[in-house]
């Protein structure tokens, strides 16, 4: 278990500031979208809150699941690294806990997680991890000022355009996910 700087890789709960959908009141469309979004969504306050707008949730989940889970392209552990760096950078304790765990499961180590919790800007156990972390922070903090200089380190490491786009998608969708988690409710710490 890692606890540093207000972040943790423990499993957390999340409490909604709105009234989550009561599953007994769900329409067939809401049930269908909940089931295609996440395996535990029928008991998740987060998904039950988003289910108030089922079509918006459907397309969000389709994008999210394709970005984070689709085979090929950028290794999934590196997509999780990008997600974790963005979540720390945005101060999203809940998202950080989930994606620190996913990174640990996929990479089978936690050294990078400790570094990201300490300082995402300098984190990484290899040149490739450091380049991914720096790119994730640049996209998160100064999207208006991104330029060729931000892409060059990734290309220098041999990343193809498809892999850079995978990383860009993973980093950008945590701009989306963090904002929902932090503005519709709050994490419940153990």
């Amino acid at each position, binding site marked *: 278990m890692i606890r540093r700087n207000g972040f943790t890789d423990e499993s957390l709960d999340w409490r909604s500031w*709105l009234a989550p959908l009561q599953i007994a009141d769900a329409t067939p469309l809401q049930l269908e979208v909940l089931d295609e979004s996440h395996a535990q969504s029928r008991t998740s306050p987060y998904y039950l809150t988003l289910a108030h707008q089922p079509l*918006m949730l459907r397309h969000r989940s389709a*994008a999210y699941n394709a970005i984070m889970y689709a085979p090929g392209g950028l290794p999934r552990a590196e997509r999780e690294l990008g997600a974790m760096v963005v979540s720390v950078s945005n101060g999203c304790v809940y998202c950080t806990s989930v994606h620190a765990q996913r990174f640990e499961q996929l990479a089978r180590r936690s050294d990078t997680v400790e570094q990201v919790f300490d300082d995402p800007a300098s984190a990484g156990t290899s040149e490739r991890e450091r380049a991914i972390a720096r790119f994730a922070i640049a996209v998160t903090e100064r999207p208006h000022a991104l330029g060729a200089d931000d*892409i060059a380190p990734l*290309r220098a490491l041999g990343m193809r*355009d498809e892999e850079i786009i995978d990383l860009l*998608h993973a980093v950008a969708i945590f701009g*989306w996910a963090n904002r929902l988690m932090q*503005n519709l409710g709050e994490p419940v710490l153990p």
Partner: protein
Amino acid sequence: MSTPDASNPEIDVIDRAAGLAPGDPLHAARRFRAKVVEASEASHDALLHQPVEGLSTEDRLRVAAHVCTAAGAASLAQHYQAELAAAAGRDAPPSPALPAMLQFAGALTSDPRRGDRAAIEALRSAGLGDAAIVALAQLVAFLAYQLRVVAGLRAMHAGAEGARP
């Protein structure tokens, strides 16, 4: 929807804002993740055009243009302004809740840490129900994603000439 290139499914909102066209290697590289391309465009359409009680498409377009302008995403801001100029209800007065919506959207865009329970209560006090608040939060959060994808693609495009043999 009412986008100018609705007749050409090969070019979506993100392509257009990033300056990509069929034949461009980056346009093709995006299609490696066709599901992401489709879901991003479908999200855009649903978030702006799906009917929501108490949240008009026109006010959503005003929020989107405001967010993109504030974030320095000029090409996307132009897109939402053009959609607003072409919207059926463009001349109807905005909702009295629009100032509260813009304040919520601006804070959420510039720093996601600024979100707090009081911001949600302010939207409720302005008359928005929970389903409308979910729609507004999804829209603003989606824009954070969309403008970053566009910015990243533009940076890749800018660097492509030097990097390719």
